[in-house]
């Protein structure tokens, strides 16, 4: 019987890890559909970003109360997963609390701290759940989240609550142990005899570990990938001032050759696509951004366009990018290579009206706790609209021709540029 449990457990662990890795590799493949761009300058400064933004959760502390609740969940997640090691050892070898004899009194301290964290995670998740479903904060009831995204968020929170409860129940029903939090739960189980308690403990133990494996394999399909991708995303976040737009070398060269034809290479190079029409025209960092997004909506809550009722929502830009990327990924899975499906990120997933509303104010970028830039995607799509489709509002076309002819966005004579010096 014990041997069967051990074999079953080992198979379960192996299968869970196999599918998890398989899905992660699929996500990696999808991210690398994006255009190559080499980002690895100043590794020292980049590691500092990882420390501050990912480990330190600096941006979360723009709202300290929420940051602390989130910190409980985050620390709880990392620390309680140490316990996972013991669970795996117990599961495979059939031992019970394998680390207890090795660690002595430290073990009690360790489990006590896990229990305190589990309780804190539980409280935080209940608060988070009520912020979404009872208090109904504006950014959580936005139409961005209609349907699956709202369910996704609730599934994650409920799973956390269930997992933490199972962990505490498992300790409470272990007759030999007396830990800080679970000992308060013991009275709940007074009416059970020893063998019943053992069944409850075993069930809680199994459900807990199955729950963890299920959650792990749910991750790649959920908005919750930020627990992994926040770290590389912080590392690869730009180090330059946020106002800087990415330069287009090809156009820089084209202008240079037009002005100084002697500089032009003799062999014509194939014209490349300007800007981004679809996900494969974005950089891999833009695509990693899309997978890192946890749909918290801090960006959209700070977006001047969104909060004055325009169609643009930076969060939705990220969600649409991921949706399109996953569709492209599925297309590749079925056809081996991407077969044109008559759709593109621009127009089919993100509309012109959304793109036109952006003031490039960087509020979305500033707010994002996991170093995402929705603005970068917006600007790349705008480039495609204007340069590939010549699609600009009439006023912008006027502005372009004024700049071209009068060297100013308005129709003034360049000769009057210094007229202010002769005014009183």
């Amino acid at each position, binding site marked *: 019987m014990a041997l069967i449990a051990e074999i079953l457990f080992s198979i379960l662990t192996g299968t869970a890890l196999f599918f998890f890795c398989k899905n992660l590799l699929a996500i990696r493949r999808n991210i690398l559909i994006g255009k190559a761009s080499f980002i690895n300058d100043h590794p020292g400064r980049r590691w500092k970003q990882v420390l501050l933004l990912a480990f330190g959760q600096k941006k979360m502390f*723009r709202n300290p109360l929420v940051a602390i609740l989130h910190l409980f969940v985050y620390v709880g997640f990392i620390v309680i997963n140490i316990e996972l090691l013991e669970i795996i050892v117990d599961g495979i070898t059939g031992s019970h609390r394998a680390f207890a004899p090795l660690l002595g009194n430290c073990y009690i301290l360790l489990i006590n701290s896990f229990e305190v964290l589990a309780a804190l995670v539980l409280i935080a998740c209940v608060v988070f759940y009520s912020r979404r479903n009872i208090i109904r904060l504006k950014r959580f009831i936005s139409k961005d989240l209609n349907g699956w995204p709202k369910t996704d968020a609730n599934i994650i929170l409920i799973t956390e609550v269930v997992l933490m409860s199972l962990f505490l129940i498992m300790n409470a029903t272990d007759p030999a142990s007396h830990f800080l939090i679970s000992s308060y739960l013991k009275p709940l189980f007074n009416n059970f005899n020893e063998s019943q308690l053992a069944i409850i403990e075993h069930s809680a133990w199994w459900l807990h570990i199955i729950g963890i494996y299920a959650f792990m394999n749910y991750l790649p399909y959920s908005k919750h990938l930020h627990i992994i991708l926040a770290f590389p995303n912080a590392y690869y976040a730009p180090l*330059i*001032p*946020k*106002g*800087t*737009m990415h*330069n*287009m070398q090809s*156009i*820089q060269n*084209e*202008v*240079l050759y037009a*002005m100084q034809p002697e500089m032009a290479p003799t062999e014509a190079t194939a014209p490349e696509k*300007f*800007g981004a029409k679809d996900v494969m025209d974005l950089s891999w960092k833009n695509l990693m951004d899309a997978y890192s997004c946890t749909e918290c909506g801090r960006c959209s809550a*700070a977006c*001047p*366009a969104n909060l*004055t*009722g*325009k*169609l643009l929502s930076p969060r939705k830009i990220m969600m649409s990018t991921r949706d399109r990327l996953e569709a492209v990924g599925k297309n590749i899975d079925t056809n081996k290579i991407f077969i044109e499906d008559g759709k593109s990120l621009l127009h089919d997933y993100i509309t012109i*009206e959304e793109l*036109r*509303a952006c*003031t*490039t*104010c*960087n*509020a979305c*970028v*500033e707010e994002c706790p996991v170093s995402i830039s929705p603005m970068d995607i917006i*600007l790349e799509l*705008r*480039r*495609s609209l*204007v*340069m590939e489709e010549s699609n*600009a509002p009439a006023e*912008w076309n*006027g*502005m*372009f021709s004024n*700049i*071209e002819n009068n*060297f*100013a*966005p*308005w129709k*003034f004579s*360049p*000769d*009057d*540029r*210094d007229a*202010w*010096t002769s*005014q009183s």
Partner: protein
Amino acid sequence: MKVNTMAEFMAKGEQPEVLFWVGCAGSFDQRAQKITKAFATILDKAGVNYAILGKEEACTGDPARRAGNEFMFQMMAYQNIQVLNGYNIKKIVTTCPHCFNTLKNEYPVLGGNYEVIHHTQFLQELIEQGKIKFTDSNEWKGKSITYHDSCYLGRANEIYEAPRKVLESLDMELREMKRCKSKGLCCGAGGAQMFKEEEKGDKRINTERADEALATKSDFVASACPFCNTMMTDGIKNRAEEVHTEVLDIAEIIAKAIK
């Protein structure tokens, strides 16, 4: 007022210590011209040896680039960098955060490397160096003011303190809006929005921001960008509050207090 151009300096075989990049708004927009003149007056009074490009200045290309027209941007950048490098420009001060951002962050990769500072930073320096002295009874003392952060100065380049320090040096009472500094709300003009109608929505962005400024019940709203200035002025006019709350650029405030 007499303002020397780079061409005139060159003719005399001299080099000014700093180039004042006026920008399109500062050159042509009637309201922004007042800011330009105020800043030029300050430079004169502080004894700064400066020049403008005059007719040789051209749009940096910022609105074209942000609208998506990289060709237009690259053409303007090429032309401007030729002129600036031709005059061997080392240091540029500008009253426009959009020009500031483009010159400082986007021209270097194209071969235009200059020390670029915003006029609020320059004013702070001049005050600290004692080159700007205020009249004993300047009209600003004790007046309340709220400062509207320009996105291209603030989040884009993390300049939050210089404009505030300048206002504080006048003993004005600085009242912060609910959303300020890195959380500052855009005026609605950036990203080439200045040159088109807003998209459909339920409120104009500048009205939203003006409401927030008016909620501080300050005597004045300070701006550090000609576009923000226009947007805030219009927003406050929409609420018919222009009699009580005037929008002024920081340069205009200093120009009125300078000895």
